[in-house]
């Protein structure tokens, strides 16, 4: 069975050029980037080249990039780091305040919740039906003790893109640090830390065709950041631990490819995505694209097929060779109700009836055509057996 992969928001395959760039660093070029000798110097040079590529993708300076183990570490480091640093610098006795949203990834939500337990106040901004936060609500949420706004750039489930430039202006006006989880936007749409007035940004390698286990944080020069890990002096002490040279080289190469191919990838992928959406909506009654009219990443589509169980649809499609997803998976692999779909106002039954397709650089028109055959057939079978969907009576009976 030739499998079709429409789950690129979960992870992407390593680009062949990325793999090629990494391979020497496992054996021949194995040096420790902190070593004095030639082996070390060559590793150091590779790491610094990668840093330049990541910086270029974000319109940042290389020294503002810190490599990490991935998006989760980057989010933790940014949020804990800046809050702890502001806390210790503050002379006031009131506890610091953070603003975030109700549709963040768990790496942000659970970090904020951990801070709440330590006495930090957190505001979780609601979002509209389109999945966007309201700027006026953001302004109203600001307090004198607000130290950080952390809002994701593109949402993993819906693809909706927040107005980062406007949010960044508000943060700057109030002299509040501004962090974004850009894991789902980097490589898909332009990201410019200066235009967005960002102080901190998280990104992940494996979402942009680099391997798992590597990511980065952008930290604007001068931003006080408490370190998470203690150890050697690697990465100016911000992130001790021997650098994952091969992974970092892979991330650098992936950033370079993303920067060069973004302009051609985005329109091609969004045309395929639109073809998928139109095809599914026209073939499947009682289906609806969530946040359809919001600005969205070109590759993401979240669709509700009323009356079905999204979890069953994912399994049925996987058995036919089509990989897509619903919500966020927990450790056992079972599906949990999506907090994002709930936040945009979907009733529980509709949230359960929703699945996400996320296309990638290698997705072909033939694959979309195959999906347009597989999905309607699977939805029809589910609805036939559904206890809640009675409108459609099968023509075969």
């Amino acid at each position, binding site marked *: 069975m030739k499998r079709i992969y429409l789950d690129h928001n979960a992870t992407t395959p390593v680009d062949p050029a990325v793999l090629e760039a990494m391979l020497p660093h496992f054996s021949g070029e194995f040096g420790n980037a902190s070593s004095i000798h030639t082996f070390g110097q060559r590793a150091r040079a590779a790491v610094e080249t990668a840093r330049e590529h990541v910086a270029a993708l974000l319109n940042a300076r290389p020294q503002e990039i810190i490599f990490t183990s991935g998006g989760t570490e980057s989010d933790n480091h940014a949020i804990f780091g800046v809050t702890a640093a502001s806390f210790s610098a503050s002379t006031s006795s009131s506890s610091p305040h953070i603003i975030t949203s109700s549709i963040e990834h768990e790496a942000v939500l659970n970090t904020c919740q951990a801070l709440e337990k330590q006495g930090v106040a957190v505001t979780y901004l609601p979002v509209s039906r389109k999945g966007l936060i309201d700027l006026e609500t953001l302004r109203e949420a600001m307090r004198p003790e607000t130290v950080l706004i952390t809002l994701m750039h593109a949402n993993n489930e819906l693809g909706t893109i927040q107005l980062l430039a406007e949010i960044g202006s508000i943060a700057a006006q109030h002299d509040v640090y501004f962090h974004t989880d850009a894991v789902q936007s980097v490589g898909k749409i332009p990201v410019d830390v200066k235009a967005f007035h960002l102080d901190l940004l998280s990104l992940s390698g494996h979402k942009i065709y680099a391997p798992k286990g590597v990511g980065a944080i952008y930290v604007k020069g001068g931003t006080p950041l408490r370190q998470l890990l203690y150890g050697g002096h690697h990465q100016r002490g911000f992130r001790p631990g021997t650098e994952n040279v091969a992974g970092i080289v892979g991330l650098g190469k992936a950033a370079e490819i993303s920067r060069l191919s973004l302009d051609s990838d985005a329109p091609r992928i969004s045309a395929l995505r639109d073809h998928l959406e139109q095809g599914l909506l026209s073939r499947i009654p009682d289906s609806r694209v969530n946040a359809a009219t919001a600005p969205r990443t070109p590759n993401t589509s979240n669709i509700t097929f009323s009356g*079905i*169980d999204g*979890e*069953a*649809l994912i*399994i*049925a499609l*996987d*058995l*036919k060779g089509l990989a897509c997803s619903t919500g966020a998976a*927990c*450790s*056992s*692999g*079972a*599906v*949990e109700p999506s907090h994002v779909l709930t936040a945009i106002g979907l009733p529980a039954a509709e949230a359960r009836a929703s699945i996400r397709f996320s296309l990638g650089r290698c997705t072909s028109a033939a694959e979309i055509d195959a999906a347009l055959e597989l999905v309607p057939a699977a939805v029809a*079978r*589910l609805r036939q*057996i*559904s*206890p809640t969907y009675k409108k459609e009576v099968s023509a075969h009976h």
Partner: protein
Amino acid sequence: MTTQAHLDSLPAGTELQPGLVAVAMSGGVDSSTVAALLLQHGRPIVGLTMQLWNQRRLPELQGDGPAQHRCCSLDDVYDAKRVAQHLSFPHYVVNFEEQFEQRVVRPFVEQYLAGRTPIACTNCNTDVKFEPLLRMARQIGAERLATGHYARIRKNETTDRYQLLRARDDSKDQSYFLWGLRQDQLSRSEFPLGELTKEEVRHFARSVHLPVAEKPESMELCFVPNGNYVQFIHAFAREEGQPVQDKEGDIVTEDGTVLGRHSGVHNYTIGQRKGLGFTTGKPIYVLAIDPENNRVIVGEDNALRATTFEIETVNWVSIEEPTVPLRAQVKIRHKHEPAAGMIEALPGLRARITFDSPQRAITPGQAAVAYNGDIVLAGGWIK
């Protein structure tokens, strides 16, 4: 018969059914063996493991170590996945936490608090495994659902009715927990272990090198991590914001004579002898729980015995509801030796059971299941 002979002759009809079969996999040796058996018979299968209960809930019930050998623990999910990987078939974890809480855990707690002695496994079978799980199995393209239950299904060709039968291995028989199954559920279910003994199952599991071949049996309620269900009920009720009031009260005889004090009616079960906190000349047993008056009623062994009682929510499994009383052997708890008597259908999904001789501790909340030989005639909840 040798194991191999059993394996060559799965329950009638099993081999003839075409199409994909979903196997409900707990991660234990029984359901894993079902998967291996069906594969050996050339049947295409997909494994489904239900996530039923979040073990992170009610953390006060966790022991020091990780929860082990419970049907909902992550270890069991991984075991099921290892088996699927070992035998190369697709496997998925499916989330039924909400249904499990609504249809199994909550009724269990409510029954208990009403002074009854509930069984969770029957509800789980009738309302979760053979309801939403079976439906999901069909939705994903499977025609049927196979489980590791020790019981048998047979189609009566004259009446066209599916019959539920005791397992060949009486010591493992689980038909007592399956009486709630309706015809539509039975018609799409398979119990491939029904003809096998536990030893044969283990032997087969070893012969195909199943990674769970030596795994011990799980004995406790799967959602009670430490086996202490009284503690569980207290913790659950507390989480619901309605903590159980353990109100002390009187332990009385049937004529109202106070013999002692109890620590809260929920801490007693019918037939209990030990731990009453007082002694009389003769053995004294709990006869009834009276939560309304906060009393525990006790008496001698002969008062614990009864001949006739009613059951409710009756399901006539293998036969149509009869118009005349039938002879039957009736089991009133899982480990009860079936006793001879009559079963008579009553209006409103009820039935009356009359034993030939009095039986001990007929306990409200438990099920009574009536058999004719190996065939399950009917079951219902003891009122």
